[in-house]
């Protein structure tokens, strides 16, 4: 009897824990919708961020974020894919490869604010001013380890017979990698890139001292660049109602975009599997 009761109690506790976890997600999303929807309008996408207390939108911040995320990925993706290829194809179980794998894991878990400090010292101090480039570079450094490890994991899945078949035709090794291996796992690599886009598009800390922020619309990465996360941070902490409202709308936008990317990256591999 007591054993049965204990068992039931235990099960109930586990269910409770799961409900807590789900509850947090639901409450956060609910809050975002409740507070963010009120500010949803076209002007959000067409007008630039207003002065203190004024009315406006988030157009410059959205454009800036898109540009820096795109630049960051364009920098990180080729380097990450090549580095992942080296780990999977050439380095394999050598000491060097293990060291690089370890350092890559460390870079992945390095606090993002430290990446910001690093890029500040290397790029901002060197250039003499804050810039979109500095922001894009810090985002690239954050995306890089994610892309490296997913590429490596994916390439390891390519069956050895596929490579042997390619090599048997006299194809040079690099062509086997590029034309056979990459193609075989393209969905996986793209998923990794999508996930790293999701990861960097919400990053705030590394942009604080690199891209800074700007209240103007600019597409020139040589200038300080407006971006959603820092704008949300500054507006949320401000005493002005209109700024707070914009912060909540921005928060809703960014969270929805990131959750969407996450869900897409989960659905994509399955869709592909079903089609083939």
């Amino acid at each position, binding site marked *: 009897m007591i*054993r049965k009761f*204990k*068992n039931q109690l*235990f099960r109930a*506790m*586990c*269910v409770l*824990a*799961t409900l*807590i*976890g789900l509850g*947090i*997600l639901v*409450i*956060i999303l609910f*809050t975002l919708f409740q507070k963010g929807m009120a500010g949803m309008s076209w002007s959000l996408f067409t007008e630039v961020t207003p002065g203190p207390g004024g009315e406006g939108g988030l157009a410059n911040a959205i454009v800036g974020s898109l540009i820096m995320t795109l630049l960051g990925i364009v920098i990180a993706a080729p*380097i*990450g894919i*090549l*580095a992942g290829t*080296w780990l999977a*194809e*050439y380095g394999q179980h050598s000491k060097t*490869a293990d060291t*690089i794998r*370890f*350092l890559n*894991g*460390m*870079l992945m*878990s*390095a*606090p*993002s*604010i*430290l*990446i910001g*400090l*690093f890029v*500040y010292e*290397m790029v901002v101090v060197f250039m003499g001013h804050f810039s979109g480039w500095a922001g894009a570079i810090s985002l690239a450094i954050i995306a890089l380890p994610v892309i*490296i490890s997913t590429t490596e994991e994916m390439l390891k899945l390519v069956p050895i017979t596929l490579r042997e078949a390619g090599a048997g035709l006299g194809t040079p*090794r*690099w*062509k086997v990698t590029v034309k056979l291996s990459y193609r075989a796992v393209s969905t996986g690599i793209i998923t990794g890139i999508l996930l790293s886009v999701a990861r960097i598009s*919400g990053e*705030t800390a590394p942009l*604080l*001292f690199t891209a*800074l922020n700007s209240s103007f619309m600019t597409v020139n990465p040589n200038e300080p660049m407006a971006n959603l*996360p820092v704008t*949300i*941070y500054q507006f*949320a902490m401000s005493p002005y109602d209109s700024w707070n409202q914009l*912060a909540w709308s921005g*928060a809703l936008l*960014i*969270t929805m975009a990131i*959750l969407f990317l*996450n869900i897409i990256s989960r659905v994509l591999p399955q869709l592909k599997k079903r089609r083939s």
Partner: protein
Amino acid sequence: MTAISLRALPWQGDDLFRRACLTSAGLISVLMFAILLSLCIGAWPALEKFGVGFFFSSEWNPVTKEFGAANALYGTLVSSVIAVFLALPVGLGIAIFLSELCPVWLSRPLSIAIELLAAVPSIIYGMWGLFVFAPWFSEGFQVWAGEHLSELPIIGQLFSGPPMGVGLLTSGIILAFMILPILTSLIKEALSTVPKVLREATYGIGATQFEVIIKVLLPAIKGPIFGALILALGRALGETMAITFVIGGAQSIESSLFMPATSISATIAEQFNEATGDMHISALIGLGLVLFMITFIVMGTARVLLRRKAQ
């Protein structure tokens, strides 16, 4: 001549490709080294001036240019440890429910929902923590705790103080929410490595689910759970934006968990752009160096622990 160079081409391509891959991979080591070096160089003026005292002094005064890391270090460590202690039971419960108790068709969507918690950006946790959770926590728990818990011996000190909503305990709780997904998925992964026979054998002698899980499964994955905890701790230590919102930003060490405090990351995020003078900047980078060292050691330990058990 032409024939030879034509034949040599593909192999040159091979060499070129290998070199490009190697360079990219090598870039990671260069990056890590450069990060450490730039932090050391940036922190040097402060370390030179304050010496070892920098790590132990709780003086942080931009006006008199006296800087010490103790306040921020204390806030970082305490909030992260609170987070790990709070997240462990919940993470265990969720992992057990998802991999042992719930029907298979439900397990996958629920796992994805929990994993989505990890995708929510840090700044959103911060806003939600400050504007939604903190007021609720202040009225719902802190006022009650002030009446009932603050009189208790020993632990009473921890729960006394004004019910402001923000502070160390709030930061710990928000951090706990943030590390929950990684903790859950690592424990779930560990549970899935336990052979099925072990479960079947224990059920076979008439054990209840509770007994199977508590007496057989959990002891079998003690190591990985510990590794997961250390990894989650490492995540919590470096978390910035959420903490900046809810920790209160006070340069002090108080015995009460309700009081505002600060953390390394929050201090850097708040003060770096408004830093007055080179010594202030150098001290902030010094804080960054301390954080880098701590996370490097903690994460390194976690990786070694998790890898050893995985083999």
